[in-house]
């Protein structure tokens, strides 16, 4: 059962990890919202080292507001978003309050 549903606000865990993982550093610690559920997948963090990737993890397409994410570096219109595949173990529930995604 997937822990999050479309529309849920989620925060990407800001963990350092020296081994293989698929969470880009530029979204670590940032708040987005679940755009879509992409199903269960083998965990690449163990799969990369010869294991079977079990248990499988829910994968989410998480939307980040471009302005929130990049601040003044982004000069496009409000409403543009970045969608990133994020595995469930990298997500935690975020408060519904607007914190600009920088919390």
């Amino acid at each position: 059962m997937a822990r999050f549903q479309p529309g849920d606000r989620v925060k990407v865990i800001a963990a350092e990890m020296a081994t293989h993982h698929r969470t880009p550093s530029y979204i670590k610690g940032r708040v987005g919202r679940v755009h879509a559920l992409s199903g269960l997948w083998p965990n690449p963090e163990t799969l990369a080292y010869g294991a079977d990737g079990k248990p499988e993890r829910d994968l989410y397409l998480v939307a980040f507001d471009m302005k929130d994410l990049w601040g003044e570096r982004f000069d496009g219109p409000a409403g543009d978003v970045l969608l990133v595949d994020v595995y469930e173990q990298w997500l935690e529930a975020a408060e519904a309050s607007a914190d600009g995604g920088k919390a």
Partner: protein
Amino acid sequence: MSTHTHQGHDHAHDGHEHEGMLEDVELSERARRVLAMEELLAEKGVIGASEVQRLIDFQGARSPVDGARVVARAWTDPDYKRRLLADPEAALLELGYPLVGSAKLAVLENTDAVHHLVVCTLCSCYPTSLLGLPPDWYKSFAYRSRAVVDPRGVMREFGLDVGDGVEVRVVDSTADLRYLVLPQRPTGTEGMSEDELIALVTRDSMVGVGVALAPVA
């Protein structure tokens, strides 16, 4: 004995040659490393001796024309488009395109309101099962780092100016889903056949840095 030098390991070679390798080509350090790894994986039985070549052949057999066939079918057959968006793998199989490996495919539909652009910031994930090998720029550090920060600027450099009234969605393909953009059907193509439409679907339009070509008047 093979003609290239190995650095970093000294296992015995069994006098085999790499098929088709040119003796006068100086291999880069990275190319030598890849060949050494491939040999080791084959020696240890992790991969079959011909497995890598089989995959290269498979990918070489695919090109953006294959993706264009899928797009043109979706443009001309609303039921097919529905199936393509709901179950891309099955819809591709209908046209004779099996996916290889563990990766699956997702289709992103561009509309009057939304334009999708695909990038892989971590490496160079690309729907090779359908489109063949990615272009070099897709793998470049410049594209991968800039597409997520300045997508509209990057698209302008490709000749595409997306209006402010259209929401741009950049998709960073970091997992095992491969993304295919379903571009909009150009206006003025109402009477065109599927074959004529195929010629309008560019590789760039299926990555999102471009749109489908306008028909020649």
